[in-house]
């Protein structure tokens, strides 16, 4: 279970949400669905996700707001925008806000799988790199002989994953 890619899909189009979730689950992803921005932010606070797939135009909280909040609250999460309101401007804006990718609807499923894979790899790499630097720090602290310092650093490392 731990190896599964944890994905949060947010879209107000329920039919679309159901069918894409099913397709991705068939490919071994751990998919969680949310039909609006507020729910999505709440769910992300409860569970950990590697990636999120976001629609932009939604009733209530807008996709770009959700993007901002998720990026702020979760260090390693990568976010891909999947929207029918595709435009150059919104793509640039979302990229600035830290979105990993931007896919206009209707999309090609393979392209989606590719971008999910790339984003996941990036997320894992960053996590790995971050862990490495931390580990190095721990090693340094350990060499200094501070057992308490090591314990504190390990706790920080664990917190980072959120």
């Amino acid at each position, binding site marked *: 279970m731990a190896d599964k890619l944890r994905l949060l899909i947010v879209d107000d189009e329920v039919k679309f949400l159901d069918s894409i979730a099913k397709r991705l689950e068939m490919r071994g992803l751990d998919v969680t669905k949310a039909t609006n921005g507020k729910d999505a932010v709440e769910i992300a606070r409860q569970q950990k996700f590697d990636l999120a797939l976001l629609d932009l135009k939604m009733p209530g909280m807008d996709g770009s707001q959700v993007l901002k909040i998720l990026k702020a609250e979760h260090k390693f999460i990568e976010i891909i925008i999947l929207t029918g309101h595709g435009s150059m401007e919104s793509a640039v804006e979302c990229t600035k806000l830290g979105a990993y990718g931007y896919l206009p609807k209707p*999309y090609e499923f393979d392209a989606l799988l590719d971008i999910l894979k790339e984003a996941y790899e990036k997320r894992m790499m960053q996590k790995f790199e971050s862990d490495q630097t931390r580990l190095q720090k721990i090693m340094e602290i350990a060499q200094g002989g501070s057992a308490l310092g090591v314990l504190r650093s390990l706790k920080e490392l664990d917190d980072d994953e959120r």
Partner: protein
Amino acid sequence: MAEEKIKHSPDTGSTILRDSYYRELIKRNFLRLALTYLAPLIILIVYFHFQYREFHEHSRHTHLQAIAEYQANTLDLFLRERIVNLRNLIDDPQFQAPPSKPAMQHYLERLQKSSDTFVDVGFFDSTGIQRGYAGHLDYLEDQDYSEESWFIDLKDDKSDFIITDIYLGFRQKPHFTIGINRIIEGQYIVLRATLDPEKFYEYIISHEKTKEVKISIVNQEGYYQIVTAHEGTPSGDSSIIPPRNQKIGIDKVVLGNNKIEYAYAWLLTADWAVIVEWVEQGIPLPVFGTQFGLTAFSFAIILLLLAIIIIRTKKIVEFQIERETTKAQFEHAAKLASVGELSAGVAHEINNPLAVISTEVGLIKDMMDPELGGSYELDDIVPHLISIDEEVFRCRDITRKLMSFVRKTEIKLMPHSVNVLIDEITDAFWKQEIAVSNIEIEKNYQDNIPEIVTDANQMKQIFLNILTNAFDAITPPGKVTITTSSDHEGHISIAFSDTGKGITPQEMDQIFMPFFTTKEVGKGTGLGLSVSYSIVRSLGGKITVESILGKGSVFTVVLPVR
């Protein structure tokens, strides 16, 4: 097939319509120009014509009167001379009453030396018996004149002379006489001379000023005294009795079908009036101006103006039609432009169902893919097929609505409720856009709002333009309030109130100008409001704007219920 026919018929119909419209335009413009340019000219010409007629008539009258007065003065002078001739005889110190026969003869010779109009001369005693006579009618001697009116009148009159009307008297030949009385040595005596009217007439005719008038002399009763040969006989009835209250004047008399206009002048010496008439009575007064030239000139100017007006009318109509065509083209272009904006907005509406379809198709493929380990029954697939079907129809609805808007349809005037029209835009057409925009729409509809006769598409275009602007002005979250109402003066108003950024005074000045836009490049054409404005104006309504910067704006469309 039936549809094909219907499609073709409006073409022929519209050319007939265009022709009659063209004719109507020509007629209207021609009348307008003619009224503007010709009417004042014609009024001026008619005014001058009447002024001229009056002036002309006045000068004719003055002319006639002058002749009459001159002739009267001349006659008075002549008659006074004759009276003086007689006075000279009677006042001669050597005059003896009664005069002897040779003395009478001598007197006659003296008179005739003064004027050859004298025919004879007689002497009367107080009893009215002619005691002395010289002339060619000797039998008149010793005749009793005491009962003759002239003798009685002379006796009663204050003045010392009398001039009789022309009469036949004892001699049965037209003549008139001048009598003079005196009292010499207690004796009342009268000296009387007869004058020949024919000679008298010659005297007048020699003074006749022009050949265009005829001159006659009538007495108080209107009987001819002196008359030209071709006009009645002396002592004949002239039917002209000039008024006695004025010495000189102009009068009219109707003889049969002829209205005769004449000038008269009363003599001072005798109860005679000089009558002057035009030789050709009833010459019609000129219609326009005196001469043919003036009439022709006026006519030529009117013709010239008419030609100019016709040319101008054609030009104006061509210009109007061109302008209307351009306007129609502009409106259509603007409509297409706003459709362009609209379709950009609607594109994502289609993208969403397309995404659903492609995902559903992918899912069905996955289900049938053995590699993905699916062992699905056909029944499991059916809901996804139904879903695809639904999404296809969702797309079709969107395109259909879009097409109904884009189509260059003839304007169809039908009664519509604005409430329904707005609902069609907000609920059917724009529902998704509104749902995801975080902008609330509040509707304050008047329930029984009167229907207006209008074209639904044009109305929707106006409302859509205003709503689009309202949405663009709002940074979500916000609210658009649509209020419909009607007043007692036959107007309905639709107010769109937004909580947007408002309009600056500078923007307000240009808000209805074509191509004015505050939106980003590529987002707005600047045609929406200008087109809405022109449509509303063409429907006899108006659009008003109120705005508070930073608080929002209210656009109110007021339309007449017709």
